[in-house]
């Protein structure tokens, strides 16, 4: 498979030549990828960007990093959510030798979005519904099962999972494995024996709620948030006591300040986010009670500031005409005290959402040289297409630059913090609005990025999709979808549907971009061997050079990859790389759910963009572990 790399300095002729090549081989399939330099939207300057920055670069704050013990105890690995491991046995010089060391069938054929967790020479894998947890013994050949835990969630919960019955991983803390089930139970099991220690029901499927996110443990609190932005839920983030499972606090995503845990400590940076009970007054009538704003994504933690960071989901319904107002606190980044849940600051990223641009993506905590000083920031590749660099102490947006093609908005006003909408892309009742970019899953959905302190780059897996929409009246029937939008997605400019962008946080723009034919719906992992691993929806697991983006190795797994790769040191001292293969999720629903491709609106319109997937991947559920010979 040919692969070409171009950088800014190669000039316009080079880019044109590359586009020509891309055009010729555009639909060649087989997971073909091309790396090329890419200009951010609206940036007309052609500037030089060396393959690896030699100047000042972003670093991981020490207090939020994880010890280099070869383990992987939570999906994001460290509290800064870098998904970086310093392990360097596998590197550019030898990765071509990488081969399968072990496989394991999860026994479930739905989308495998979880990260395998590695702690104390044991690997913990959670499946999609029915959420089996396997403990695999890494000390024995073939990774035999030490125990299996079956939480037996209600089968009916499958009816309130908007986008496949996925689960994004378990977390290890204090001798326990903590898991979420689709039917709204958070459960702690003994990591050694697999015995259930406690089980707490935190939500109700009859309100449209479900759990798909990976919990995060901070001190003695288990943080859990609900899914259901497509079911008119009232969103929340909840803390449970790690030892008992008892509810410690709940911060609602909508409603009066006392419910949102907004009190005297609350100091938003921007005037637009200040006021009393905005979670009620920014909605018509009682719509806030069914207004979404769940917390189904990623949580980061800064121990120095003692703040957790997470974003809330889209407001419900999708049809914006049914909810005039800013719809707070949907699509809002919150900084909260993990012990009390109190909000310390908030920034509504996308007010009055028009296109389902959930704000649940990961916040990567970094220290970045910026205008002569080191700023303590978080980086958020947002679904709305902008990469936000935000001061994690105050909520000030330092920049918000596009990392993909956008025409639904024109930018972010850094003075007011407000997203600027393009009027011609606003949905209108009964009218078809065409070519809205990005589409509903955004430039990037849940699939998490990684960061390497060695290159200073952020490795962002994402989509390149646009859509046509027609808004229709949504009726609220508890426990059923609350959407009100007919959607048809399609490939964005260039015709490719996925990208992996290496983002330079200091320069505030991409260093290079790999184009993938299919959406890149897997996570990425960055290693001390200067490699980045990711998977494609047709099953290729790839290693690329973290500095240049050049592909160094690939392996075809049994099904499409939408999981989160990890790397760890085994009991034998060798470095391993592991990933789950098994297509599904929102993007892979056409395969996992046997959907009919003749209906473009199937799976909320995603099927229209994925009609070829059935020919390129079948269902699966297999763990692959790779090692050098």
């Amino acid at each position: 498979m040919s692969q070409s790399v171009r950088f800014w300095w190669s000039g316009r002729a080079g880019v044109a030549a590359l586009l020509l090549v891309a055009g010729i081989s555009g639909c060649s399939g087989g997971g073909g990828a091309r790396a090329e330099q890419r200009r951010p939207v609206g940036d007309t300057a052609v500037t030089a960007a060396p393959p690896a920055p030699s100047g000042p670069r972003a670093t991981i704050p020490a207090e939020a990093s994880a010890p280099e013990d070869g383990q992987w105890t939570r999906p994001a690995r460290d509290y800064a959510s870098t998904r970086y491991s310093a392990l360097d046995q596998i590197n550019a010089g030898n990765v071509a030798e990488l081969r399968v060391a072990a496989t394991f069938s999860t026994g479930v054929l739905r989308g495998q979005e979880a990260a395998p967790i590695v702690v104390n020479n044991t690997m913990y894998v959670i499946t999609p519904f029915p959420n089996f947890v396997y403990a695999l013994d890494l000390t024995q050949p073939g990774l035999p099962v030490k125990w299996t835990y079956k939480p037996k969630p209600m089968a009916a919960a499958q009816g309130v999972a908007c986008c496949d019955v996925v689960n994004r991983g378990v977390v290890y803390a204090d001798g326990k494995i903590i898991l979420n089930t689709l039917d709204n139970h958070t459960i702690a099991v003994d990591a050694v024996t697999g015995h259930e220690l406690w089980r707490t029901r935190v939500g109700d499927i009859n309100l449209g709620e479900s759990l798909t996110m990976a919990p995060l443990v901070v001190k003695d609190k288990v943080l859990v948030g609900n899914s259901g932005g497509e079911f008119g839920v009232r969103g929340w983030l909840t803390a449970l006591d790690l030892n008992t499972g008892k509810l410690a606090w709940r911060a609602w995503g909508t409603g009066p300040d006392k419910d949102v845990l907004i009190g005297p400590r609350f100091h938003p940076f921007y005037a637009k986010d200040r006021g009393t009970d905005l979670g009620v007054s920014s909605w018509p009538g009682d719509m806030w009670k069914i207004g979404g704003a769940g917390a189904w994504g990623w949580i980061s933690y800064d121990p120095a500031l003692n703040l957790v960071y997470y974003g809330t989901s889209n407001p419900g319904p999708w049809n914006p005409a049914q909810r005039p107002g800013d719809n707070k606190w949907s699509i809002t980044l919150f900084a909260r005290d993990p012990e009390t849940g109190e909000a310390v600051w908030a920034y509504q990223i996308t007010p009055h959402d028009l296109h389902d641009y959930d704000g649940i993506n990961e916040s990567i905590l970094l220290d970045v040289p910026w205008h002569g000083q080191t700023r303590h920031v978080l980086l958020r590749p947002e679904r709305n297409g902008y990469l936000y660099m935000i001061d994690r102490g105050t909520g000030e947006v330092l920049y918000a630059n596009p990392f993909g093609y956008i025409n639904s908005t024109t930018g972010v006003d850094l003075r007011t913090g407000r997203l600027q909408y393009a009027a011609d892309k606003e949905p209108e009742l009964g009218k078809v609005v065409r070519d809205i970019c990005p589409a509903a899953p955004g430039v990037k959905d849940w699939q998490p990025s990684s960061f390497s302190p060695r290159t200073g780059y952020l490795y962002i897996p994402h989509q390149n999709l646009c859509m046509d929409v027609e808004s229709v009246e949504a009726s609220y029937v508890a426990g059923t979808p609350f959407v009100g939008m007919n959607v048809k997605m399609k490939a964005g400019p260039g015709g490719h549907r996925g990208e992996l962008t290496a983002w330079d946080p200091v320069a505030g723009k991409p260093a290079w971009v790999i184009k993938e034919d299919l959406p890149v719906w897997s996570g990425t992992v960055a290693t001390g061997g200067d490699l980045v691993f990711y998977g494609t929806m047709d099953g290729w697991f790839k290693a690329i050079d973290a500095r240049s983006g050049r592909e160094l190795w690939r392996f075809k797994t049994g099904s499409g990859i939408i999981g989160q790769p990890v790397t760890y040191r085994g009991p034998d001292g060798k470095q391993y790389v592991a990933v789950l293969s098994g297509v599904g999720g929102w993007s892979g629903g056409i395969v996992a759910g046997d959907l009919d491709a003749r209906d473009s609106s199937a799976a909320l319109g995603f099927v229209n963009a994925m009609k070829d997937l059935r020919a390129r991947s079948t269902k699966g559920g297999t763990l692959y572990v790779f090692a050098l010979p």
Partner: protein
Amino acid sequence: MTARTLRGVLALAAAAAALACQRETRRFRESPPAATSETAVAMSELVPGPKTRDLPIRNPYERNAYAVSEGERLFNAYNCSGCHSHGGGGIGPALMDDQWIYGSDPENIFSTIVEGRPNGMPTFRGKIPNYQVWQIVAYVRSLSGLLPKDIAPARDDHMVAGPEPQRTEALRPKHAFTPSAADHP
């Protein structure tokens, strides 16, 4: 023209009118096959012992274009489309293909809507009047071309998502009773 021929023409015209009436009729009082009990619906193809004779349940709405268009409207209003889209599926399975997990006969579909099914299909018992359920049943069957072409809905008023039921290829239903919770929501 002889009187005999005239009588024949008149009879033909009357028959045509009667048929057309059924296709177009709008009832003020609904009397759908609610009298037939949905509890008699079999969920298995395997019948032990000698074959018993099944009396097929007829859904008169399948001969009435207005009722089927009402079924389409209700399919959206009750959020069926939220999970099944315009027949292609999403959260729930596709309804325009030839795979029927819980049966394709009108009484099977009626029962699926009213009783719910274990892997995510909610029960609408007591939420939707029976005659509306039968209208929805007729529309659901039109999605895979099981209704006559002159009854099935034609182009709808919304963004074109797929082939309209009137032009959908008629697919011979295949019963796929697949109980696996993990495989079929």
